[in-house]
């Protein structure tokens, strides 16, 4: 067991655990931040997507020991960024959500995309979002909402 000092959504958090624990489970089960979701555990569904220094990463395959000083952003804190707020507003305006379980991961990938590529093309959207599975099939509105957020 070791203690890891993380910066999550701008706040300092200390986690006492072993280095191999993926960030996903540290966030959920130790820090009680349940906005980030478990969907597959093998980086195939995107439900666990968070930001690491602003880049979208899968937290289920990111051991807490490998994070170091890099800043973590989760769905609970993404509204603080301009892109995050615009994406969340577009998601509500276009009624993207159905069951909603995949949506925190979708929003984190979309927010990182918008920050890096303010006017994303369809290829940019495919490149950033194809890793996020939605079993309810809300992809059409996800694409439309990203474009709406880019235009807002």
């Amino acid at each position, binding site marked *: 067991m070791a203690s890891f000092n993380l910066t999550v959504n701008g706040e300092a958090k200390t986690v006492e655990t072993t280095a*191999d624990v993926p960030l996903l489970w540290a966030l959920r089960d130790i820090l009680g931040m349940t906005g980030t979701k478990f969907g597959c555990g093998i980086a195939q569904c995107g439900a666990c997507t968070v930001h*690491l220094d602003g880049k979208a990463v899968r937290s289920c395959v990111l051991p807490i020991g490998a994070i170091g000083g890099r800043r973590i952003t989760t769905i609970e804190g993404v509204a603080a960024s301009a892109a995050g707020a615009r994406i969340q507003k577009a998601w509500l305006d276009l009624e993207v959500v159905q069951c909603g379980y995949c949506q925190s991961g979708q929003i984190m990938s979309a927010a990182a995309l918008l920050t890096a590529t303010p006017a994303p093309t369809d290829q940019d959207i495919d490149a950033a979002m194809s890793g996020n599975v939605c079993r309810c099939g809300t992809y059409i509105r996800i694409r439309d909402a990203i474009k709406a957020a880019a235009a807002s």
Partner: protein
Amino acid sequence: MRIVAWAAAAIVAVGCVILIYLVLGPGPTDYARGKRVAIADYRERNPTGVPADFKASGDLQRGEYLTKAADCVVCHTSKEGVPFAGGRAFVLPFGTLYSTNITPDLETGIGKYSDRNFLDAVHKGIGRDGAALYPAMPYPSYSLMSDADALSIKAYLFSLQPVRAPAPANTLIFPFNQRVLMRIWAAMFNPDKRFEPNVEQSAEWNRGAYLVDAMEHCGECHTPRNLAFALNNRKKFAGAIQAGWRAFNITADPASGIGAWSKEDLARYLSTGHATGHGTAAGPMGEAVDESISQLTGDDVAAMVTYLRTTPGVATADLHAIQDKPASDHHGEGLAADVAREGKSVYEGSCMGCHEWSGVSPGMPFATLTGSRAVNDPTATNVAQVVIDGAIRRDGDGLASMPAFGNGYSNAEIASVANYVTARFGGTASHLEARDVEKLRQQD
């Protein structure tokens, strides 16, 4: 009529010359200068047996260490089968071979083997029933193993639980199913000589040579084979295809081989299956690391590294210096999207989550692609194989695994994503096609 006779004679003569040329091929350490002596006459530390830094509590533990060093378990265990109970399939161009049961079971195992029987099998490739073994069992390399070490392995095997498991019947086509042919082959290509240390090389070099050539039999995969399927030590460690995977060039050549590797990187790769800035072991090499090399002591791994770094460099035509710069973080940069467009669409959906657009994993060194030889291989064989079979790497702080995509993705999709990966992260783009992937699937 006489012309026909003369032609036949000429062919036979040329055949003999080639045969002699092949038979008289160099032994595994002939390239090194200096006199070789029998182990008994070697005054430095004995290169055989267990290393000084291995605290063995008794013979059985020494036998277990040597059994691991000789990597018997990988071949003598079928998929999810009982260790050492045999049944693993070896798909060869001329049929399929199954490994035998080497647990001490009396009917289906080696329970009735005397010491003599065991030494004949390990050194001469002759089974207790007198039948010649197929050289898939690497007795030409094991013939270098000392009698004491071989019998120490036998003692360990005899301490295991006997398991009743008859090996499935081999399906070799004529003439390869003729055991007698194997006897002739063995006579020509198995020197059947124990390891002889080289007095002008260090004790560590000799221990390394013994471990690499006699125990781990690295050459059986990494040394190309001649026309008669025997190891061609003129091009020792220059690389070959084994069980559908490409065993890369591990000579000291800086571009094609491991000449540019540091000693530390080589030792770390051998003992954990990965080294920063280099690739990750998968397939048969992954098994060798997991079941064998990772179990060796630090001294032994260091000895292997010392030996490996002295083999003469041999260049391989299609393997150039490794391109290891990360690719761009932006999907559209660095590589024209129209190279393997289908491959890119597979990559962005199923691979980018771990490997990113840069090829550098944010949290799992094993998943970093840039710097890996497999990605810098224009045949992309190992990239396709690892996509089909997946990989599991365990090291100090945990476990990283890649799923086996073989069931979910078609041959065309796997070929295309392999081409995309080599083009984006390696030096040269590969041109794998669906039928190549189909062939690769049948190998393992």
